[in-house]
């Protein structure tokens, strides 16, 4: 068969391919990525988009958990203060009901309980970043309002709970409405405030059995607040556990992303060397062929 006398097209093509291979290897090495644009590996890029999205979601779940932890901790510490005050009120009630005190002593106890009542109102209207914690989702206004004339405290919040997503398909309630904390279960009208008020009234009237009854009511309120406080503590625990899980999840995603698009440095380096060798050899061969003798050299 007749041999192709024109090697140039072949050589140009080979040089092109060698150059391309070298460029690819160099890009892989410099970026550390095997996939630098969608056409490098369309399926891997499509997966990367989804992994990036998952990763962003995990970051956001972590950020949401952080924000919620602050709010819930405020709620928790507020309820600790409430518990301390109520415990004091209970012991004052027990003292008053013992029947060993005169009316003057009872009156001064009544004054202390009244102070507790005022502090209680302030705690029930605790806010975080301008938002009231115990008004359900009506966070813009103070949930407990004391009537200026009668001193009767009314709840103006609602009984709703917000939920926030902290994982795929996982969300937590972020608040307890005041009625679940400061009212007796099944009897919304029996509140911490009515219990404290009846204790004050009983102390002022010196009615021992009345004081005892009121003290029991305050004790019941204490138990309810204790129960409510568990919600805050356990939710914070849940958030902490979840954050550790999210950190692990983030690591998993990053690891998977690496397998999708990262360059195998050893491979890329060896590819680069190989491409370089081929390119050098091709260039040398092209130069060699150009100098090749032909018949004309010998014809004179």
């Amino acid at each position, binding site marked *: *068969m*007749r*041999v*192709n*006398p*024109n090697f140039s*097209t*072949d050589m140009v*093509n080979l040089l092109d391919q060698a150059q391309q291979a070298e460029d690819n290897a160099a890009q892989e090495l410099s970026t550390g990525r095997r996939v*630098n*644009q*969608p*056409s*490098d*590996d*369309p*399926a891997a*890029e*499509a*997966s*990367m*988009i*989804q992994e*990036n*999205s998952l990763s*962003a*979601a995990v*970051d*956001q*779940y972590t*950020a*949401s958990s952080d*924000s*919620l932890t602050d*709010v819930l901790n405020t709620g928790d510490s507020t309820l600790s203060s409430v518990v301390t005050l109520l415990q004091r009120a209970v012991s004052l009630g027990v003292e008053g009901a013992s029947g060993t005190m005169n009316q003057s002593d009872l009156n001064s106890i009544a004054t202390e309980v009244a102070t507790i009542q005022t502090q209680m109102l302030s705690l029930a209207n605790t806010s975080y*970043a*301008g*938002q009231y914690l115990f*008004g*359900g*989702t*009506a*966070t*813009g206004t103070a949930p407990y309002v004391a009537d200026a004339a009668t001193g009767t405290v009314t709840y103006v919040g*609602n009984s*709703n709970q*917000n*939920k*926030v*997503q902290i994982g795929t398909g996982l*969300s937590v309630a*972020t608040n307890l409405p005041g009625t679940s904390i400061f009212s007796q279960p099944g009897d919304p009208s029996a509140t911490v405030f009515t219990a404290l008020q009846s204790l004050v009234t009983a102390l002022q009237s010196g009615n021992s059995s009345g004081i005892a009854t009121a003290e029991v009511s305050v004790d019941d309120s204490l138990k309810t607040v204790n129960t409510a406080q568990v919600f805050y503590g356990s939710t914070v625990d849940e958030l902490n556990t979840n954050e550790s899980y999210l950190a692990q999840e983030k690591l998993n995603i990053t690891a998977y992303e690496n397998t999708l*698009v990262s360059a195998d440095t050893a491979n890329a380096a060896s590819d680069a060397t190989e491409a370089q060798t081929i390119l050098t050899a091709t260039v040398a061969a092209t130069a060699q062929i150009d100098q090749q003798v*032909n*018949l*004309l050299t010998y*014809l004179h």
Partner: protein
Amino acid sequence: MGLTADLNVSVQSLLASTESMDVTTTNIANQNTPGYARRTVVLEEAAPVDDGSSTGVDVKAIQSMRDNVLDLSVNAATAQQNLSSTVSSSLSPVQSLFADTASDSIGSTIDAFFSSLQQLSTSPADSSLRSSVLTAAGNVASAFQSTASVITQTQQQADQSVVQETAQANSLLQQIAATNGEITTAQNLGQSCNSDQDQLSSLLTQLSAIMGYNTVNSSDGLTLTTSDGTPLVVGSKAYPLTDQLNSSGFNDVYAGGTDITSTIQGGNLGGYLQSRDQTLANMGTQLDQFAFQFAQAVNTVQTAGSDANGNAGVALFDPPNTTTGTAAGAASSISVALTSGSQIAAAASGGASGDNSNLTNMIDLQNQSITNGVTPDDAFSNLTFSIGNTISQANTAATATGNILTQLQNQQSSVEGVSLDEESSNLMLYERSYQGAAKVISTIDTLMGNVLDMGVTDPGY
């Protein structure tokens, strides 16, 4: 046979050698001429005279070593290779918008939008978080707009290339028709048309780089048609290629008044048309649907809730939520309709200011099949795959057809290409042959001189 006849034979031999050397010279001169196929001299023993003695050599023909089938294959491969590489290069400006590393891509801005909603859900009354949601929504709108704009620009660039390539193809078609006419005339007159054939071959290869075509040989010479048989050149008549704006604002290609846009396959022109009218046009449509359906889904949830001031939510995105609306142009025109973060309807209808239940519904959209039949992330991921895969396939095809083309060109060159070694050796051969014939002539001259001298007697003085 006598000396005179021998002299004639030798003269013919001289002429044959001269003509052979002419051919060799032409071959060497055209070693690098595109379309040139090497020529060989076909020598033939001249018809013997009645007494059976030979009358020497005749140059029967100067043959062009053209392999028409191989030429066709090379041209077809050229058209395919140029199609693939043009598709790849014309689409590459678009794909970076869909890369996972693009921080302002549609996908990442949508992720950021949903993140901002989630952050707001932890504190629904926070006005700075509300502003962040509006900013994130604005980024989504800009991402849609800039992506749509790059797609349109890329289409316009392809369109400009279509106009340029059409003009070149048109000029080539005119030249092909003219050359075709010359070949037919020469053939009818029984003249050689090797150089016209070489030129035609070169023109056809140039044309195949621009567009694919079908060829039919007839008595009128070559007929060129598009893939569906619309004529481009018939004999010496070329159907002029013209551009005409279509309803999308792009140029359609007409051959002699017939729209051939959709029948142009292969070549740069085919590549630009495929990118402009298929890949990019489809992406544009999908992007419009994506933008429209995304805006619509968000607006539907938004208008079902109450904003920070207890007012009913109004649409977050323009274009607004209309059931009769069409998606066309949505990606390039989408914008945020709200002016204040307080207008975000975080609460359920009539809900308190701290309620986040409507936000929860909006966040849930991230995992609902609201755009192009899939979730927003999947819709974007699908577009990434689609553009990446189109370019990747084009690259693979360009490499594969490039290798095939090189193979074919090697084959073509091994049949048609001029080898200097071969020509040098031929030159030697013809030179010796010429020297031989010349020697015979000089010998005959001597013999004839001897014969003429025979009748002359020595005068003796």
